[in-house]
């Protein structure tokens, strides 16, 4: 008899889980349930349509429902799953019970909502569903002033793009610099400059106390006074959408995400989970984290789908390479920066350097700043941040992979690199940073001889 796999959720994790499972076991009946009308689009591209860099929302679609149907998937669009009964092996949707042999939970996230008066006023917008984003784009045509609340990655992209669109943007966050939960202040400084150049007014170190208006928002009440606005875009944290799973009895961890093992198995037999609804361990500390990127969700979905179809694939603890364009400036990193290492009390040595992205004389060359954090003693890489123009993403991907394999500052100081004037300079910025870091350690060791290089006090 044909086994049936049900996947709940049509985001990156759900789609990759369903398609991978079908590919691994073509005889498996795979049904995918999503509450939305659309599938396989890139919500991460929405700020760039608002900013005019991408001309149309339609460009964000990567595939169609028909294509998945032709690949053999049973697509249940606009169908909300309201209950999961693990004992009976059924889900409930549209008041109908449907049986499953295997289940993958990919219910994603919901946005954190501000817990302040006025949070239910009209004019507060959350970025997720593409159809709502299309409607909101028309609203943006008629407004002049926008408040963006939350200096998260989405908030930074949104503020920069709305500034590019020519709107007056007020960017509000409690932290001392943008992206303060991951970014270090030396990297944030050029981001502040770039956003300001785009017409964004920064209100950092500023708490939101409420939203002001009768039915529709007209101002944000903050610790720094009222800020008048026509609309608000809320860009706070992602919260795992675990309601369905926890009601079914699945366990959550200390991040609020579902607990899974390295095969994406939950604690229940025949049930997997993937994407923004789960937590996974950080590769350096093994502490569970969540709220990662779309590429993490996609890879987790592939692992869950393959294993549900009978394969045996493991998912590694994560080193979280990340990057984004903030205004006209590119920033990125992986694992930890000084802020997180300092907060955790983890000792580290620093290696910093500046190079160029192409031959210095070649048009378009930009400065590339590299900061590496290494474990005292072994000098194994534990984190880093990179900023500048081109090549930030590739360097962060490479550094995350190298750190996962235990590469040291010595390795990077003597690394090989491509030299080709249009695409790479003679001296690789990563190698420059590592060489500077080693030189500094030698200087410290000469000044105060000790068996191991001293660590920056955390």
């Amino acid at each position, binding site marked *: 008899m044909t086994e049936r796999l049900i996947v709940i959720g049509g985001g990156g994790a759900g789609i990759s889980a369903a398609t991978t499972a079908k590919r691994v076991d073509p005889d498996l009946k795979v049904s995918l349930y999503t509450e939305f009308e659309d599938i396989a689009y890139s919500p991460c591209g929405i700020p760039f349509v608002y900013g005019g860099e991408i001309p149309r929302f339609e460009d964000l679609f990567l595939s169609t429902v028909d294509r998945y149907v032709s690949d053999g998937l049973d697509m249940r669009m606009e169908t909300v799953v309201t209950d999961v009964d693990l004992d009976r092996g059924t889900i409930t949707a549209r008041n109908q019970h449907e049986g499953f042999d295997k289940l993958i939970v990919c219910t994603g996230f919901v946005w954190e909502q501000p817990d302040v008066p006025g949070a239910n006023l009209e004019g507060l917008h959350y970025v997720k569903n593409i159809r709502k984003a299309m409607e909101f784009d028309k609203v943006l045509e008629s407004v002049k002033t926008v408040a963006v609340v939350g200096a998260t990655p989405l908030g930074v992209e949104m503020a920069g793009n709305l500034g590019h669109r020519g709107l007056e943007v007020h960017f509000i966050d409690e932290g001392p610099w943008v992206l*303060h939960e991951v970014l270090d202040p030396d990297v944030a400084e050029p981001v502040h400059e770039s956003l300001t150049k785009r017409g964004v007014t920064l209100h950092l170190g500023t*708490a939101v106390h409420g939203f002001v208006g009768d039915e529709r928002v007209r101002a944000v009440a903050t610790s720094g006074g009222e800020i008048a606005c026509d609309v608000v875009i809320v860009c706070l944290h992602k919260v795992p959408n675990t309601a369905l799973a926890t009601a079914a009895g699945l366990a959550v961890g200390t991040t609020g995400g579902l607990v899974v093992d390295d095969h994406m198995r939950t604690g229940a037999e025949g049930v997997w989970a993937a994407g923004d609804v789960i937590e996974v361990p950080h590769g350096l*500390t093994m502490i*569970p984290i969540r709220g990662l990127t779309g590429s993490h969700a996609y890879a987790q979905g592939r692992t869950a789908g393959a294993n549900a179809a009978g394969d045996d694939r493991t998912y590694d603890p994560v080193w979280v390479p990340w990057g984004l364009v903030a205004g006209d400036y590119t920033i990125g990193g992986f694992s930890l920066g000084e802020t997180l290492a300092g907060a955790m009390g983890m000792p580290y040595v620093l290696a910093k350097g500046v190079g160029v992205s192409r031959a210095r004389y070649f048009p378009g060359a930009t400065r590339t700043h590299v900061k590496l954090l290494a474990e005292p003693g072994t000098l194994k890489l534990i984190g880093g941040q990179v900023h500048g123009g081109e090549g930030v993403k590739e360097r962060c991907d490479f550094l995350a992979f190298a750190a*996962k394999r235990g590469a040291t500052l010595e390795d990077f100081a003597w690394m090989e690199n491509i030299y080709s004037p249009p695409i790479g300079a003679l001296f690789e910025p990563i190698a420059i940073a590592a060489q500077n870091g080693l030189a500094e350690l030698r200087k410290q060791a000469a000044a105060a001889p000790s068996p191991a290089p001293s660590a920056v006090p955390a």
Partner: protein
Amino acid sequence: MSRLAAERARLREQAEHHLRIAAMEDLRRRHSQGTYAPYKPRGGWFWRLVFVPLYRRVPWEAKQKAMRAMRMTAEGNGWTPPARTPGEPWRPPQP
């Protein structure tokens, strides 16, 4: 979410929040240019005056051991810490 799970999540969130604010204040002393004083809500004195200084006195190795003992890391949930050594070269699967 069970009450115990919710409480563990709340404690982690509070601890991380106050440790991060303290770390950001340290970094601001070195990079005052282009940064702002973080907003500090009222309350949280236990975390600021007791937890953060105590946490900072404990060496990182001891913290790691304590976190493992308190099952705050993922080893008990079917995860293996990475070896952090160069891996074996890929080989095609045997038929």
